[in-house]
C-alpha cells in the first residue's frame, strides 16, 4: 500500500468518529439547504434548474467546510508531536501532504453528495423530480480541491487548528467575497457588467456545459500552488535551528516563485479564456412554434453571442443558444452554428460582426448576406430568437397584415397604453409587415394581404366597405375582428356569415375577475390556436360573448360553416374562429376563408399586455399565425424552461423544514450514535 493511500485512509479514519466532524457536516447540510431554499424562492420564474440552484447554493458554503475539515490535519500532528514519527518514516513530505489532501477531498466529496441526497430525497418524497447536475458537481469538486489544498496549507503553516481555520477562511471566503461585495456596493451601475461572483458564476458556467479552460487551469494552478506551499511548510519543520536559515530561505523563495508563476499562469489563462463546450447540460423544452420554425427552415444560420463573458446575461444567453442548437439538431431542419464573441478580447471577430451590422450586447444571427441582431436587454427569450430565425429563413416576400382605419380603430403605431405598438412589434419580429388599410379609399383589399385586422372599430363600416371586405374574404381572405361591444360595430353584419354571433356577456358567479369588470379566462377550446395556451390565462377587459350563428347551425356541404370556440368562461364563449369554404361558384382550389373574433376590443393593447402576467400576446400571435397560414404557434404565457414549483405554501415549508432541519439532524444523530457505539465498544 502506497504511503499516499495509507495517509489518505488515516486522514479519513481521524474524521470517522470525530464529533466535531459530525457537527460540521450537520451544519453544512443545514446551511446548504437554507441557501438552496432561499435560492429557489428567488430563482422561481427564472431559467435555472433546481439542480443548478442546489449547486450554486453549495458554492459559498464549501470553503467554510473545507477550512473546518482541513484545519487540524497537520496542525494537530505538530501540536501533539506525532509529526516527528511521520517525518522519520521513509515517506516524503509530498506523499504525506497528498495523502492528507486526498483525505480532505474525499470528505468534501462525501459532504457534497450527501447534501445532494438530502435535497433530492426530500423533493423526490414530494413527487418532484430533480436532475443530477453532473457538470455543476464537477465544478464543485474542482472548487473543493482548491479549498482543501488551501485549508491544508494553512494547517501546515499554523500550529493551532483554530488559527489555521481562520486563516483559510480569510483567504477563501472573507477576502474574495468581501472584495466582491465592496465592488458591487461601490459600482452598482456596473453590477450587470460584473456579472455574478466569479466562484458562483463558474459553477453555473459548468452547469450549462460551457467549461472555461481558463478557469479550470486557474483552479488547477492555485491548487498545485497551495499544495507546493504546504509541502514547503512541512519541510520547514525540519529546518529548525540557526544553521538552517538558508534552507528556510530557499523554501520561502520557492513559495514566492510559485506564487509569481501561479499569478502569471492565471493572468494568461484569463487572457486567453478559451472555452470548451460539452454536449451536456440541463434539458430544455421549446414551444411548438420554435420547434416548427426550426424544423421548417433549411440551410445554416450562424448565431454569435456578442457580449462580454463577464456579463451576467452571458451565461443565460449561451445556455439558451446551446439548447436551441441541440433542438435544431434533433428536429433536423435548420443547422445552427454558435460563436461566442467577447468585444473586449476577440477584437477581429468583433470587428467583423460590427461590419456585418451586428450590435454589441446582442445575439447576432446571420444567414447568407442577411444579419439580424437580437438585443439582450435584460435576458433573452426563446420567442425573440425564434422570431429572428424566422425573419432570416422566411421567404423574402413578407406577409402583410392590414389594419383597418377610419372607424375609430386602435392604431398599431400608437405607443401609449391605448395603442397596439407592442403587438405590432411582435408581428414585425415574426416577419410580418404592418400596414394601414382605408377600405373607403381602395377598390379592393390589396393582393399581398395575409390578414385584415379590425381592431375595436367604434363606428359601422359603410356598405361599400363591407362589400369589399366580403369580396376579399370570399376569395380566401382572413380576418381578425376585436369587438368593442355586442352590437359588433364595424363588421357586425359580416360575422354571422362565418358562424359567429356576438351577444352581450352575462355576469356569472363562477367567472373569475380581478377588477370586477375584467374577466380571467383559463378554459380553452380544442384548436391549434389555443392548444399551446392551456394552463395559462387570458385577461379580457370588457368582454363581449358570442355564440354560433344560424349559418353555423344550418350550413351544409361547401357552405358548411365551422364554428370553434376558443376561449370560454362560465359557460359563455368570448373568442371563436369561424371557417367556411370559398364563395359559391369560386375556384375550389382557393383556400378556406377564416375569421377569428375576440370579444374584447383591446385585449392586446399596450396597457393590457404590460398590466398583468397573461397569455394575451401569445393568443394574438397564434391567431395571426393561424389565419395567415404560418401555423407557428406560441407556447403560452410562460416560456418553457422557466422554473415553477408545484408546491403550495404549506408544502414549501414542509420541504424546507425537512431539508434544513430534519435530514441534517437525522444524519448528525446517526454519526453521533455511531461514534458513541464505537467509543462504548472500546
Amino acid at each position: 500500500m502506497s504511503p499516499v493511500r495509507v495517509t489518505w485512509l488515516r486522514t479519513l479514519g481521524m474524521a470517522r468518529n470525530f464529533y466535531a466532524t459530525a457537527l460540521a457536516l450537520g451544519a453544512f447540510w443545514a446551511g446548504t439547504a437554507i441557501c438552496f431554499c432561499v435560492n429557489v424562492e428567488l430563482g422561481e420564474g427564472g431559467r435555472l434548474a433546481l439542480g443548478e440552484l442546489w449547486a450554486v447554493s453549495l458554492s459559498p458554503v464549501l470553503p467554510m467546510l473545507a477550512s473546518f475539515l482541513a484545519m487540524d490535519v497537520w496542525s494537530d500532528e505538530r501540536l501533539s508531536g506525532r509529526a516527528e514519527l511521520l517525518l522519520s518514516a521513509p515517506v516524503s513530505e509530498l506523499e504525506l501532504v497528498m495523502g492528507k489532501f486526498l483525505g480532505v477531498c474525499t470528505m468534501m466529496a462525501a459532504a457534497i453528495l450527501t447534501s445532494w441526497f438530502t435535497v433530492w430525497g426530500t423533493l423526490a418524497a414530494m413527487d418532484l423530480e430533480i436532475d443530477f447536475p453532473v457538470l455543476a458537481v464537477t465544478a464543485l469538486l474542482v472548487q473543493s480541491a482548491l479549498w482543501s489544498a488551501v485549508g491544508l496549507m494553512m494547517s501546515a503553516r499554523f500550529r493551532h487548528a483554530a488559527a489555521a481555520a481562520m486563516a483559510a477562511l480569510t483567504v477563501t471566503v472573507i477576502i474574495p467575497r468581501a472584495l466582491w461585495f465592496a465592488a458591487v456596493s461601490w459600482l452598482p451601475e456596473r453590477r450587470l457588467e460584473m456579472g455574478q461572483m466569479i466562484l458562483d458564476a463558474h459553477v453555473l458556467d459548468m452547469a450549462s456545459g460551457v467549461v472555461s479552460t481558463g478557469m479550470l487551469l486557474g483552479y488547477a494552478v492555485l491548487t498545485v500552488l497551495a499544495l507546493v506551499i504546504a509541502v514547503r511548510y512541512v519541510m520547514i519543520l525540519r529546518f529548525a535551528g540557526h544553521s538552517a536559515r538558508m534552507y528556510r530561505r530557499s523554501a520561502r523563495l520557492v513559495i514566492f516563485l510559485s506564487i509569481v508563476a501561479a499569478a502569471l499562469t492565471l493572468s494568461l489563462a484569463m487572457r486567453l479564456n478559451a472555452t470548451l463546450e460539452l454536449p451536456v447540460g440541463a434539458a430544455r423544452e421549446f414551444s411548438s412554434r420554435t420547434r416548427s420554425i426550426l424544423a421548417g427552415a433549411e440551410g445554416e444560420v450562424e448565431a454569435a453571442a456578442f457580449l462580454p463573458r463577464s456579463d451576467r446575461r452571458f451565461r443565460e444567453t449561451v445556455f439558451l443558444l446551446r439548447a436551441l442548437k441541440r433542438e435544431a439538431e434533433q428536429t433536423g431542419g435548420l443547422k445552427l452554428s454558435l460563436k461566442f464573441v467577447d468585444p473586449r478580447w476577440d477584437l477581429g471577430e468583433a470587428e467583423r460582426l460590427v461590419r456585418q451590422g451586428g450590435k454589441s450586447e446582442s445575439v447576432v444571427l446571420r444567414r447568407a448576406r442577411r444579419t439580424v441582431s437580437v438585443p439582450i436587454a435584460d435576458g433573452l427569450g426563446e420567442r425573440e430568437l425564434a422570431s429572428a430565425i424566422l425573419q432570416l429563413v422566411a421567404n423574402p416576400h413578407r406577409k402583410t397584415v392590414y389594419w383597418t382605419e377610419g372607424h375609430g380603430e386602435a392604431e398599431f403605431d400608437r405607443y401609449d397604453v391605448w395603442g397596439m405598438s407592442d403587438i405590432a412589434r411582435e408581428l414585425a419580429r415574426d416577419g410580418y409587415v404592418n400596414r394601414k388599410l382605408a377600405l373607403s379609399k381602395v377598390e379592393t383589399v390589396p393582393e399581398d394581404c395575409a390578414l385584415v385586422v379590425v381592431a375595436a372599430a367604434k363606428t359601422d363600416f359603410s356598405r361599400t366597405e363591407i362589400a369589399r371586405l366580403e369580396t376579399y374574404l370570399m376569395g380566401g381572405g382572413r380576418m381578425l375582428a376585436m369587438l368593442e361591444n355586442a352590437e359588433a360595430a364595424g363588421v357586425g353584419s359580416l360575422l354571422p356569415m362565418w358562424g359567429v354571433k356576438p351577444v352581450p356577456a352575462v355576469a356569472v358567479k363562477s367567472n373569475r375577475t380581478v377588477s370586477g369588470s375584467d374577466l380571467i379566462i383559463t378554459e380553452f377550446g380544442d384548436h391549434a390556436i389555443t392548444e399551446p395556451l392551456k394552463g395559462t390565462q387570458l385577461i379580457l377587459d370588457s368582454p363581449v360573448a358570442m355564440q354560433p350563428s344560424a349559418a353555423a347551425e344550418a350550413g351544409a356541404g361547401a357552405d358548411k360553416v365551422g364554428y370553434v370556440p376558443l376561449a370560454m368562461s362560465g359557460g359563455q364563449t368570448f373568442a371563436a374562429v369561424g371557417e367556411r369554404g370559398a364563395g359559391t361558384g369560386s375556384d375550389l382550389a382557393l383556400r378556406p376563408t377564416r375569421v377569428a373574433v375576440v370579444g374584447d376590443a383591446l385585449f392586446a393593447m399596450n396597457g393590457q399586455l404590460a398590466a398583468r402576467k397573461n397569455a394575451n400576446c401569445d393568443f394574438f400571435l397564434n391567431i395571426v399565425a393561424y389565419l395567415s397560414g404560418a401555423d407557428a404557434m406560441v407556447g403560452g404565457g410562460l416560456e418553457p424552461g422557466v422554473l415553477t414549483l408545484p408546491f403550495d405554501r404549506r408544502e414549501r415549508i414542509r420541504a424546507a423544514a425537512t431539508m434544513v432541519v430534519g435530514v441534517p439532524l437525522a444524519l448528525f444523530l446517526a454519526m453521533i450514535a455511531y461514534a458513541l457505539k464505537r467509543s462504548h465498544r472500546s
Partner: protein
Amino acid sequence: MFEVRNISFGYTKTPILKDVSFVVSPGETVAITGANGCGKTTLMKLLATLLVPTSGQVSFDGKDALADTMWYRRQLGYLPERVALYEDMTVKEYLVYRARLKGELKRRIRRRVEDGLELMRLGDLQRRPIKNLSYGQQKRVALADAFLLRPRVVLLDDFMAALDAEMREAMPAILKEAAAFSAVVATGHETAEMNKWASRILTMENGKV
C-alpha cells in the same frame, strides 16, 4: 557501520552540539547520557533527520544520511522522547498503520505486527484503543513501532522513562533480541541501569561527547 562525524548544531547562534563524533557497529548498543538540556534529544533528532546539522555528517554503511534520506529512513527505527500516537486506533491497528506507512510488504505485515506485539508484551492490549492505555503502555507501543521492521539503525530517546519495573528488567533482553544486528543509539539518565544493556556509554557535556 553507523557513523556520526563532527556534527555541530544550534537553534541560535550559540551551538548546542559541537563536533560530536562516534561510531556504532551493527549489534552494538551505545548509550548516551548527560544532564538535562545537554543536547541528547537534539542529537537524536539530528540522527533521525528531523533536523539538519550546521556541519558534520551522519552516515550509515558509508552513505550520507541526508544525501539519500528515503533509503536512510528505511533503515531507521525511531522512538521520540515524547510519545504521541493516534488515540482513536487500537494497538494493533496502529502497528499495522505504521508498518504500511513504512512501506512493508502486505504479506509480511501481519507477521511483523505479531512479532512487535509479542516483543513488547502487548498481546493482551492489542485490541485496546490507545486512548485507554497508560503513558507507559503507550511507550511500549511506540517501542514496538521502532522495532517493527527490524531496522538496522535504532534511535531510542529516553526509552526507559515511564516504563514499569518489570519492563525495565526485560528491556536488555528485548534489545538483544530485537536489535541483535542493529546499531542502537539510546539516551537515558540512569547510568547504572545502562550498564545492563549498553555496550558503551557516552556522556555529553557542554555539547560534546
